[in-house]
């Protein structure tokens, strides 16, 4: 754990040192205006936002995988991404995406609405069935894709490019406001998840088993899914849909340290932050002037690492 935290600090330092504009920390601290602006107003918030988004997605991922008892679960499985993307797409189609901030707010609302809808659909006789949750999420995501396609067909062409880039996931244009906002969400979700961690891990053996161990499974599921979804929704609102982090990082951590949820949660949170900081660095530096989608680099960096671990494990 300490090792991972140290790795995160190093990753953040390295990622804020390198960029397309060559400026040095020394100049920035000495007060050279360009260096200050580039380092403190552009690069540092972006790197920190990458860390927070990675932390948010990976913690939601490990929570959902444990709650749903499904290794394929990721933060977007309950319709969060569909709801957010749908909100963004409709906003774009109506031409409202040009007003700053609107896309983020509508995306966040869409994510919340989608999660709530999935929960209502899956609940029956005061019991939330994980299979029904998965299916509801799947079906709602399909419905959202349909709406997105229609919205895009009607959207103005230029606006479409920007909307598509947003949907691919991007840390472009990160500001301190985004960092502070997401940090608040991540802290609240972390407190909630740590509080239920001891009970949540007991769900690994199934709900009947957990109930017989004195775990209030309905409460744990509600808190776990709500915290995971809200933090995912907040991450999506500031950065669009960045794939693979939430799916990959929990498995990486599980392969490296075979431990239960109480340990995997902090490990995944820090691991997700590291992976996204490095992926963002790669996406910024891959081409001289423009950026590539960061979601592609999370997979490009994470998958070989994952496969080598998988081969080495029994």
């Amino acid at each position, binding site marked *: 754990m300490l090792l991972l935290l140290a790795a995160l600090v190093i990753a953040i330092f390295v990622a804020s040192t390198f960029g*397309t504009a060559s400026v040095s920390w020394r100049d920035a601290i000495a007060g050279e205006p360009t260096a200050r602006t580039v380092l403190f107003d552009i690069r540092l918030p972006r790197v920190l936002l990458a860390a927070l988004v990675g932390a948010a997605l990976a913690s939601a991922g490990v929570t959902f995988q444990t709650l749903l008892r499904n290794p394929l679960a990721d933060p977007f499985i309950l319709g969060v991404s569909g709801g957010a993307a749908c909100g963004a797409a409709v906003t774009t189609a109506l031409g409202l995406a040009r007003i700053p901030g609107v896309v983020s707010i509508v995306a966040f609302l869409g994510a919340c609405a989608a999660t709530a809808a999935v929960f209502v659909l899956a609940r029956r006789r005061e019991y939330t069935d994980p299979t029904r949750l998965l299916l509801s999420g799947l079906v709602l995501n399909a419905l959202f894709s349909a709406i997105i396609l229609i919205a895009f067909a009607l959207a103005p062409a230029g*606006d479409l490019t920007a909307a598509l880039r947003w949907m691919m996931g991007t840390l472009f244009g990160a500001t301190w406001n985004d960092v502070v906002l997401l940090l608040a969400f991540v802290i609240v979700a972390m407190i909630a998840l740590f509080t239920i961690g001891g009970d949540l891990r007991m769900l690994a053996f199934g709900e009947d088993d957990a109930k017989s161990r004195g775990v209030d499974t309905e409460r744990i599921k509600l808190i776990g899914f709500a915290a995971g979804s809200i933090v995912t929704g907040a991450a999506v609102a500031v950065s669009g849909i960045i794939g693979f982090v939430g799916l990959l990082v929990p498995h990486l951590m599980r392969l490296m340290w075979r431990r239960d949820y109480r340990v995997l949660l902090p490990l995944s949170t820090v691991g997700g932050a590291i992976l996204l900081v490095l992926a963002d660095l790669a996406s910024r530096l891959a081409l001289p002037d423009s950026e590539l989608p960061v979601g592609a680099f999370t997979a490009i960096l994470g998958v070989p690492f994952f496969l080598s671990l998988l081969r080495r494990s029994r």
Partner: protein
Amino acid sequence: MNKTLRFIVHRSSFIVLLVLACAQPQEPRHAVQRVVSLAPNVTEMLFALGCGSKVVGTDNFSDYPEGASRLPRVGGVEPNIEKIVSLHPDLVIASASNAHPNLRHALEAAHVPLKVITTDHLAQVDSSMRDLARALGCPNPPRVALELEQQRRKRAKPPRILFAVWTEPLYVAGTGSFVDDLFVLTGAQNAVSAPGWPQYSFESFAAHPPDLLLYPSKSVKREAVDALLRRANVHVYAVPVDENLFTRPGPRMPLAAAALNHIIDLWEMSH
């Protein structure tokens, strides 16, 4: 249905304009000396206004006029903010239609003023240029409105024109765009009644073919157009056009209108 949609789209873009007009950032008080342009049509406008020397950087697609393509490039839809800052601009100019939702916040954080121009319609080209000339103190006044007016035609039988941006499937220029405005100006009409850049129904195309088919000369091959016409079993007067001329709402719009008039005149003569 179509009408309602068009209404919504028109109405909402109107609201956007209104909000944008209200939300225009305070313009820099001192004279602007260094400008970064984030759209090809903006770059063309600045050079046409005689402010080309103030442009210190452009997006990756600005290739006209000659002088613009030699300037430093700062990226596409998601421009590199660090690079922009290192060019020390006192103003960044973007086009509303391809500005990233996060752009304004990003530049604000970097203390670089941003100006966004809107050129969804043909009439906005001249007003945007006038606006830019005022903000930058450019020597040449815009003549676009005047030149466009010279291209206005009334035709006894307005030809129906389809502007195909892709043939497989058939993507076309819809209503509510400056291309549509160009058609109206030159006395023609858009064969499409859907808004945006829709995928056009192949059945409608075959059953009710347009009089004229325009296609971008660089991205669509002649053979692809021939194949399309063969498959629909229709004879349409198909003409390649310079896509940069027709898809950039900037100072060269009058040239596009002139080219269009020429094409239509030729078509009228042959009929």
